[in-house]
C-alpha cells in the first residue's frame, strides 16, 4: 500500500476503489433522493431547494428540481441543510476508548519505545470503537486517524478512515507521516530546536540514503540508532509522495519548516500552527495547509504568543488551506471550531470547506470525497439547521451512500435513566435496546 499517492500512477484511485468496494456492495441497492434542502455542495454554489441523488454508494446527481429515480427512497429535506459529511483532519479516532485507561488507549507508544515512523495506525485502528458512533451521530463521516508521538520525533503513519464502523473502514492507509517539532520536538530530541531539527534532517538524509539503495545501505556501516523500519517508512516522505504532517506552532518554527520543505522537496502539512497567521503569505507560496485548533487564543507556551481566534480567517485571507483538529471523543466538535472561526471573520463557506473538501484534498482523496458532486462517494449529512451552529444536529448521515445508524450508548444511557422511578425492575433492565 505504500506509495499509493505517487502522482505518476493511477494507483491511488485504484486502491481507493478496491478499499471501498466491500463497503459499497452492501449499499449497492440503495437509491436515495434527498429533495428540496439547502444544499451546500462546497465545490460549487449553494443550491436553495436543492436535491441530491445517491445511487450505488455514490452521488448520482446534484441540482435543483431533479426527479427522484424510480424506486428511490425519497427524503424531504425542505427546511434542512444538506452538506458533505464532515472530515476530521487530525484525530486519534479508533485508537482510544478511554484516554486514561492504558489498555483502552493505543494512540501513542510508551516512554522509551524505540520506533517512530514505522508505526502504522491501521494495525490498531478499531472500527468497533465506541467513540465512532458518537461522532458519526455528530455528522463526522471521515477522519484522519493519526498516532501520537512517543520519544521519537516521528509518530508513524496515519490513515484516512470512515466512521461507518464496518470491518473495512480504512479509506486510505499510509496517508501521511506524523512528526512533532517546535517545543514538543525539542523536548524529545536535543533539548533545543536546533537539536530537534538536526535530528529530523539526519533521519531524512538516512531515509534518502536507504531509499536510494536499500541493499547497499544495509551492507555498509551505518548508524544503528536509525531503525531500518523507520527509514523504510520515511521512504515515501523523502520521495515527496507522502505528506509529512508536522506539529509546529511558532512563526519562527514554521519558517524553519518551510526552508526544510524546500531543501528536501517534501510535501508538508502543519498541525497546530497557533502563529501560522503571521506567516500566511509564506505558507500560501509554499503550498502548506494548516490544521488548527479554532479556539486557541492563549499564550499557553512561548511558541503560542500570538495565538488568536482570527488565525483561521487570516490564513484563509492569505490563501492558505485550513482545517480544524480535535481529539477522538469529541471529534464532532470540529464544527464548533469552524463556527467560532466564522464568528471571527472566516467566510461561512470557507468554514464548511475547512471541514470537508480541504482535508480531503490535503490527504489526496479530494477527487472522491469532500464535496457534493456527481461521481463522488456519497458521504452526505442532512442537518436540522446551520451545520456550524452549536444547537444544530444531523438528522441523517450517509457514508458511502449507506444511511447510518445514529444510535449510540449516550442515547441509550439517557433513555435508561430518563425515568428514575423504581419501576417493576431495576434500571439495568431498561433502555438498553436500540431504538
Amino acid at each position, binding site marked *: 500500500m505504500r506509495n499509493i499517492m505517487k502522482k505518476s500512477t493511477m494507483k491511488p484511485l485504484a486502491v481507493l476503489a478496491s478499499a471501498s468496494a466491500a463497503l459499497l456492495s452492501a449499499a449497492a441497492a440503495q437509491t436515495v433522493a434527498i429533495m428540496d434542502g439547502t444544499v451546500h455542495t462546497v465545490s460549487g454554489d449553494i443550491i436553495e431547494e436543492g436535491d441530491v441523488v445517491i445511487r450505488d454508494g455514490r452521488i448520482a446527481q446534484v441540482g435543483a428540481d431533479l426527479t427522484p429515480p424510480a424506486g428511490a427512497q425519497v427524503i424531504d429535506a425542505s427546511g434542512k441543510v444538506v452538506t458533505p459529511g464532515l472530515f476530521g483532519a487530525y484525530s486519534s479516532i479508533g485508537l*482510544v476508548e478511554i484516554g486514561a485507561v492504558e489498555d483502552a488507549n493505543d494512540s501513542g507508544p510508551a516512554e522509551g519505545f524505540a520506533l517512530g515512523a514505522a508505526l502504522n495506525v491501521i494495525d490498531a485502528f478499531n472500527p468497533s470503537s465506541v467513540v465512532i458512533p458518537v461522532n458519526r451521530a455528530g455528522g463526522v463521516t471521515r477522519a484522519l486517524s493519526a498516532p*501520537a508521538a512517543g520519544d521519537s520525533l516521528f509518530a508513524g503513519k496515519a490513515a484516512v478512515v470512515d466512521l461507518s464502523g464496518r470491518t473495512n473502514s480504512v479509506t486510505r492507509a499510509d496517508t501521511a507521516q506524523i512528526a512533532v517539532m517546535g517545543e514538543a520536538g525539542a523536548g524529545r530530541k536535543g533539548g533545543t530546536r536546533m537539536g530537534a531539527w538536526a535530528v529530523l534532517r539526519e533521519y531524512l538524509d538516512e531515509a534518502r540514503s536507504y531509499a536510494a539503495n536499500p541493499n547497499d545501505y544495509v551492507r555498509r556501516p551505518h548508524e544503528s540508532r536509525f531503525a531500518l523500519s523507520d527509514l523504510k517508512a520515511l521512504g515515501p516522505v523523502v520521495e515527496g509522495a507522502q505528506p509529512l504532517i508536522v506539529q509546529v506552532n511558532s512563526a519562527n518554527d514554521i519558517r524553519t519548516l518551510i526552508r526544510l520543505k524546500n531543501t528536501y522537496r517534501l510535501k508538508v502539512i502543519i498541525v497546530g500552527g497557533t502563529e501560522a497567521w503571521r506567516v500566511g503569505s509564506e505558507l500560501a507560496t509554499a503550498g502548506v495547509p494548516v490544521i488548527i485548533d479554532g479556539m486557541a487564543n492563549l499564550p499557553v507556551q512561548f511558541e503560542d504568543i500570538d495565538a488568536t481566534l482570527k488565525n483561521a480567517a487570516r490564513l484563509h485571507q492569505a490563501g492558505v488551506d485550513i482545517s480544524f483538529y480535535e481529539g477522538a*471523543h469529541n471529534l464532532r466538535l470540529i464544527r464548533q471550531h469552524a463556527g467560532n472561526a466564522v464568528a471571527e471573520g472566516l467566510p461561512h463557506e470557507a468554514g464548511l470547506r475547512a471541514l470537508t473538501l480541504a482535508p480531503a484534498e490535503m490527504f489526496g482523496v479530494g477527487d472522491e470525497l469532500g464535496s457534493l458532486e456527481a461521481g463522488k462517494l456519497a458521504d452526505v449529512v442532512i442537518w436540522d439547521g446551520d451545520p456550524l451552529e452549536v444547537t444544530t444536529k444531523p438528522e441523517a448521515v450517509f457514508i458511502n451512500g449507506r444511511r447510518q445508524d445514529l444510535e449510540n450508548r449516550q442515547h441509550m444511557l439517557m433513555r435508561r435513566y430518563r425515568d*428514575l422511578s423504581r419501576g417493576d425492575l431495576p434500571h439495568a433492565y431498561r433502555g438498553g435496546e436500540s431504538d
Partner: protein
Amino acid sequence: MRNLAWTAAAVLMLGACGQESGDENADAAADAAATQEAQAPSEGNGAEDGGETEGSVTPPQNPYPSTYEPYPGEAVLLTGATVLTGTGERIENGSVLIADGKLAAVGAADSIEAPDGATTIDAKGKWITPGIIDIHSHLGDYPSPSNATTSDGNEIVGPNTAYVWAEHSVWPQDAGFTRALAGGITSLQILPGSANLFGGRSAILKNVPSRTVQGMKFPGAPYGLKMACGENPKRVYGERGGPYTRMGNMAGYRAAWIDAQSYKKKWDDYEEAYNEWADNDDDDKGDAPEAPARDLKLETLAGALRGDIRVNMHCYRADEMVQVLDMAEEFGYKVTTFHHAIEAYKIADYLAENEVCAAVWADWWGFKLEAFDTVGENAALVDAQPGGCAVIHSDDEYGIQRLNQEAAKAMADGRRIGFAIEPEHAIEWITANPAKAMGILDQTGTLEAGKMGDVVLWSGNPFSVYAKAEKVYIDGALMYDRSDPSRSPRVDFELGLHDNDYTGGAGQ
C-alpha cells in the same frame, strides 16, 4: 497546545483538576505545613494581642481581605434588546438601566427612561444577560504561560491539603482572565485541583484585572472547600501511602471529618469557657482560658462543618455521589455542588431532594473511565427534577470563554428529548444557578434592580455560536468593549512581545 499529544491530552482533560499526574514527589512536609502552632492574633473581636481584655481569641476570619472596588462607570441605558433576566424571564424590546454601579431598572423599553446625564445605547437586535459566572475555573492557578514554574493548582503532597487556599496561587497576570472577560465572564470561582481528597479553599473573584488577587476577590463571598471523589486521589496516592481504593477515599474523608468535629468542639468549648469566664464577676476568677492551637487544615474543615465554607465536590459517578450525600449527613455538613457530575442524570432525584447542584460539561467524555457515561441531556435531566439545580461549568481556559455555547448545546439536547427549555431558562445554568451555589446570588447572577451592575450585551442570541459579547459591565463599569481596544485589557506578560506589535488582549 490542546489535544495534539493524545495521551497527554487525556491527562490534561482530567481537567486542570487532573494535572496532578506530574512527577512531584509526595512530601512529609505536608503535615508540618498543616499544623501551625502559632497562636492566633485576633481580628474578629478587634483585640490586637490575643483579646484578653476585649474578648476571646478567634482565628481571623478574613486575613486576606478583598480590596476590590468597582471602577467608575457612567449611568447607561441599554434599550430595545432581548433581555434574559436570569430569573426565568425574557423581555422582548427590553431595557436595562445601570447607574451608580448597580442595576437601577430592568423592564420593558417603554417603562424605563434614561435619567439626566445617562448614556443611551440602542441595543435593538442585541441580547442582554446577567454577567456570566463560572463555578469551576483554575485561571491564575494554572495560568498561561503554562509550565512547571507556573503550575500552582494542585498541592500534590498528601491526600488532605485542606490547609491551602487557592487565592495564594492565583496569578492575576494570567491572560486567561482577559479572554474569559471577552466571553462575558464577570465572576468566577477558582478551585484547587482534584488530586487530593481535600484540595483546599477556593477563591471567588470578580473578573476585573488587578495587581493583586485581593483586588479581584468578590467582596463578602463565602469560601469554598474543594474535595475530590474517585479516580484522581486513588491514582495519585495509591503508590504513595494511600488512599489506594475508593473505600480508602471514603475512610480518608471520614477520618478527617472526625478530626474536624473534635477541633470544632475544642473551639466551641473554648468559646463557651471564655464566655463563662468573662461573665464571671469574681475578682479571683484567674486568667482567661487558653485558646486551642490553630490548625489550618482543621480550621477549613470546621468551617465547612459550621456551614461557613461551601463544599464543592468533584465527583463523576452516581454511586459515589450518593455515598457522599450519606457522609454529609453522617457529619452534619452540606455539599453545595457536585462538579464534573457526569452521571448526575442517574441520580437527579437524589440531588434535587438534597438541594445539591450538579455542575457539568455539555459534552466532554471518555478521558477517563469515570467520565465514560456522559449524555448530552445531563443538564436538562438534572434541571427537569422539581428543585433541580443544573450548572454548566468549564474547568478549562477555553471553555470559560464560551460558557454560553456550552449551555446552548446542553439546552438543544434537552429540547430534542422534549423538554421545553427556553433561553430565558437555560441562561440560569451559567448565571443564577452558579451564583446561588457560590453564595453570591443576593448580589449578582440575575438582572434585578439593586444588584451589582454585572451585565453582558451580546451581538445576538447568546445561544448561538456567532454571538459575541460586545460590552461587559462589572459593577456598572465598562470593563470590555469589543469595538474599543482601550477597553480590552492586556496582562503584563503580553506587553512588548514580538517586535512590540500588538499581541494578546481580551479580544484575541
